[in-house]
């Protein structure tokens, strides 16, 4: 006579049918299920369901799948290992070198663009020969002599600015 008190609950029967039990538990469940028609029927129902689920057949990946994966991997930056230089990749070597080159180039550009009329350091001025100084003074005089003199119209225009409105008019300027 089968002892119904030892019957498995649905979850245990399912775990048995799906082989989810630990080896000791599985053996115990098997010996009961093989003798108990109720539990045996319940286990069979899960096995039939499992067989039905098998009808969902697998598909084959498309022919171009592998090629796509290879292309994706190849286009990945980390895939482009390149050459190594004493254990370092080229990128690791070149990055600091490029940075140094950029700094040098930037400095050169700044120095070249520096305006020529900026006052020279005092030490350099002292070191210049007298002839060079006189040439420079003559150049500056020529520059000031060629500056256009403001006409009356220019004063009219400039006096529109608040700050400049107190500028002396042409007559006063001439009188002075």
């Amino acid at each position: 006579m089968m002892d119904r008190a030892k019957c498995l609950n649905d979850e245990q029967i399912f775990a048995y049918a799906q082989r989810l039990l630990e080896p000791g538990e599985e053996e115990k469940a098997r010996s009961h299920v093989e003798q108990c028609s109720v539990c045996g029927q319940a286990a069979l129902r899960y096995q039939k369901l499992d067989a039905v689920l098998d009808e969902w057949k697998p598909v084959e990946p498309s022919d171009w799948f592998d090629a796509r994966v290879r292309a994706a991997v190849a286009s990945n930056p980390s895939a482009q290992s390149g050459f190594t230089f004493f254990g370092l990749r080229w990128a690791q070597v070149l990055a600091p070198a490029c940075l140094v080159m950029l700094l040098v180039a930037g400095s050169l550009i700044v120095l070249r663009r520096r305006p020529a009329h900026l006052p020279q350091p005092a030490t350099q001025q002292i070191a210049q020969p007298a002839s060079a100084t006189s040439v420079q003074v003559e150049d500056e005089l020529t520059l000031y002599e060629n500056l256009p003199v403001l006409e009356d119209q220019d004063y009219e225009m400039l006096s529109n600015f608040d700050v400049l409105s107190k500028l002396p008019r042409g007559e006063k300027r001439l009188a002075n």
Partner: protein
Amino acid sequence: MAIDQDLELMLLVRQGDAESFEVLLRRYRAPLVNFFVRMVHDRALAEDLAQEVFLRVYQARHRYQPEARFTTWLYRIATNLALNAIRDRKGSVASNGFHEQDSESEVARVVDGKPVADQQMMQSDRERIIREAVEALPEKQCAAVILHKYQDVNYRQISKVLGVSESAVKSLLFRAYESLRERLEPLMKEGQL
């Protein structure tokens, strides 16, 4: 043993061995594509996602630590991608009801009226019924069933893939199979399955 081979291959990939990556690609291309086809029900998207898994494996090769099985790591990446894709696509799939296999079976119906086509049609209908039953499961139950039933991933691995306890995996699977039984058993009795 394939499991140990996978670990060895991945360690070789980590050292820059491209051929080992090729071996892993050939070994897991079909399982991964099928996993995604069953999860997202869209073949083109499934292939995109499978490709993404391989790319992520490659990108993470330097960080790879052989602590767990390779397949556990692989399916953890795959499951996360699949669940995200399902969440992203939920609205659009529900609204247009698109299923590639549905459209294929419609073509078979229209083009050919021969017995072979009828058989194919019946097979495709059975697959559709099963697919819809699995698709109707909550996300984690669906993933657990697909990993357990179709990908041959054991419940200990599934617990690591889904980030739940082993007993929770057994419970997820039990509830999933109960739902499937409720839905499919009447059709089995009617002879549709």
